[in-house]
C-alpha cells in the first residue's frame, strides 16, 4: 500500500504548538495525478498539515517525501496557494505583478523578471479568466478575483504538485465553478492537487480522493470508499447530523 514515490508520502507526522499536539502520528499517501480534499472540523490541523509538508511549520517527528525526495530538494515541483487572508491586499502592486511572483523561485537570485516572464504571467491570468484585470491594483479586485490571482500565481510556478489552503473560502459561486474547473483540468494533465476544503457537500462532486483529519488521520482513500457516514462521524463527532440527507 505504501509507495515512497507517491506525490506526497507522509509517515508518523507529529506537530505540536507549545504544549498541544496539532497533528498526531499522521500517515498519508497521495498518489500522483489525483485531486485530493483534506477535510475535518475546525482546529483539526488541516492547514497545519500542508504547512508542515511545505516546511513552514516545524514537525516534532515524522518523515515527509515529495515524489520520493525531501522537500528541500524538490521545491520547484511544488506550488502553493495560501489563504487569501494571509496577505495585505493594500500592498502597492497589480494582478500581473503578483502572478509574476510565482516565477521568482525559478529566476536567479539577482535576475529580474523580463518580457518572457511577463508573457507567462499574462497567460496564467488568461487561464483563470482574469486577462482584463492584469493592470488592476489588487485591493480593487473582489474576493473571488483575488483568489483567482493567487491561483494564477501558482499556475505560473508550473509545478507538478499543488497545495491550496481553502481556495473556495469567501468566493462567489461563479468563481467557485471556475476554480474547480481549473483544478480538474490540472489533474487531467497529470498534476497532483491537494486542497484544504471546508464544504462537505461538494466533496463527492469535486474531488477524487479525500483525507479525513482530526488531529489524527481518520481515513484516506478514494471518495467513494472513504467519504462515508461512519468515517465522517469519527472525524466530526456528533456534529454532522445534517449530512444524512
Amino acid at each position, binding site marked *: 500500500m505504501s509507495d515512497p514515490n507517491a506525490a506526497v508520502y507522509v*509517515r*508518523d507526522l507529529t506537530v*505540536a504548538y507549545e*504544549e498541544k499536539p496539532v497533528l498526531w*502520528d499522521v500517515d498519508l499517501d497521495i498518489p500522483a495525478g489525483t485531486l485530493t480534499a483534506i477535510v475535518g472540523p475546525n482546529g483539526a490541523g488541516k492547514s497545519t498539515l500542508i504547512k508542515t509538508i511545505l516546511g513552514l511549520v516545524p514537525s*516534532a*517527528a*515524522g518523515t515527509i517525501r515529495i515524489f520520493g525526495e525531501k522537500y528541500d530538494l524538490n521545491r520547484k515541483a511544488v506550488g502553493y496557494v495560501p489563504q487569501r487572508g494571509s496577505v495585505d491586499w493594500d500592498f502597492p502592486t497589480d494582478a500581473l505583478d503578483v502572478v509574476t511572483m510565482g516565477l521568482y523561485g525559478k529566476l536567479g537570485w539577482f535576475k529580474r523578471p523580463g518580457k518572457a516572464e511577463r508573457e507567462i504571467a499574462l497567460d496564467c491570468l488568461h487561464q483563470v479568466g482574469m486577462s482584463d484585470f492584469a493592470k488592476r491594483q489588487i485591493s480593487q479586485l473582489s474576493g473571488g478575483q483575488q483568489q483567482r490571482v493567487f491561483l494564477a500565481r501558482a499556475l505560473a510556478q508550473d509545478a507538478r504538485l499543488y497545495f491550496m489552503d481553502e481556495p473556495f473560502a469567501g468566493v462567489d459561486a461563479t468563481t467557485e465553478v471556475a476554480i474547480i474547473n481549473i483544478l480538474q483540468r490540472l489533474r487531467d494533465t497529470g498534476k497532483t492537487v491537494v486542497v484544504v476544503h471546508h464544504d462537505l457537500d461538494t466533496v463527492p462532486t469535486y474531488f477524487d480522493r479525500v483525507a479525513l483529519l482530526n488531529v489524527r488521520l481518520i481515513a484516506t482513500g478514494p471518495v467513494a470508499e472513504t467519504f462515508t457516514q461512519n468515517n465522517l462521524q469519527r472525524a466530526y463527532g456528533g456534529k454532522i447530523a445534517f449530512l444524512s440527507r
Partner: protein
Amino acid sequence: MSPTLQIGLVAVAAGLACALAGVFLVLRRMAMMADAISHAILPGLVAGYILAKGPNIFVGFIGAAIAGLLTVVLVEALTKSRRVKEDSAIGLVFPVLFAIGVLVVSKYYANVHIDTDAVLFGEIAFAPFDTFSLGGRDLGPQSLWILGGLALINGIFLILFYKELKLSTFDAGLAVSLGFAPVVLHYLLMGIVAITTVGAFSAVGAILSVALIIVPPVSASLLTQRLPIMIGLSMLIGAVSALIGYWLAMAWNVSISGMIATSLGAVFFLILLAAPKRGLVSQAVRRRKQRSQFATEMLVVHLATHAATPEEAHESTLMHLEQELGWEPEQASKVVAKAQHSGLIHYQDGSLRLTPSGHELAQVVASR
C-alpha cells in the same frame, strides 16, 4: 524634608501615577501611543506659553494635554482614512507635531527656557527647587504635589471605570451592546495618559515617563493573568524600580531619569527570564519536559497504531523508528530505553511491543 527624601518621593509618585495610567494602555496594545503623546506635548507647552504670555504651569498643562489628545485624534483620523496604517500614522504624527514645537521655540523664543533637550531628559534632581507654596508656606516640591495628585486621579479613574475598562478592553463588542460607550472611555483613557505624561515629564522627562508607563504593566503581565493583581504589581514594580534607579544614580553620580529607565529595563529582563509560568527559563524547562513526555507518548501511540497489523514486525524495530519518526539514533534509543524502564514496552522477537500499561497509556493519549 531632606532633598534626597523629596526626590525619592517624587520618583515613587511618578512610578505609581504612570503605572496606573499604563495598565489598560498596555492591555489594549497601544503602548506606543504613550511614546507619541509624550513627544507631541512640546507644541502644547509652547502654545500654553504663548497664550499665557510666559511660563504658567496651569495653562502649559492644559495646552500639553490638548496636544496629547490631538495626537490621538490625528492618528485615528489618518487610520480611518484607510490611507495609512496605524503604526505609520503614529510614527508620522508625533514627529511633525514635535517639529512644529521646536520650530516655534527656536524661531520666536530662542532665549526662553523651553529646552527641547529637557523635554526628552527631564531633570528630577531639580525637583526640590521648584517648591509649591501657599500663603507663604512652603508645602514641598511642586512635582510631588502634581505627581501625587495624578496618582490619586488615576487611581480614582481606575476604580470608577474598572468594570467598563475591563469589558471594553477584552470584549469591545459586548461593551457596546451593553450600552457602554467605548469611544468615550477610550478618549478618557487617552486623556489620563496625556495628563500623566505631562505631569511626569517635567519631573522625569518624556522618555522616562514613557518607560514608567509601559515597562511596569508589561512586566506585571508576565507574572499574573489576574487584572487586580496585575495593577498592584505594576504599581509595585514602578515604585520599586524608581527607588532602585534613584539610589543607583546617587551612588554612581549619573542621570537619575536614565538610571530609573535602566533599572526598569533590568527588572523587566529579570522577570522575563525568571517569571514562574511565562518566564523564558520555565518555558524552556517545560518545553524540554514536554518533548520527552511527548516522545514517549508518540512511541506508544505509534506502536499501538501498528499493533496486530501485518506490518507490525516491520514498523516496530528501532531502526524503523529512527527512519519514520525522523529521530536521531541517539534520541530513539534514549526514548526507547526510558519507555522500557517505565514498563511501557518490552522486546519481543527483536521488535518492540507494548506492555499492558503501554497499551493503557496509548488509549489515554488516543482519547485525548
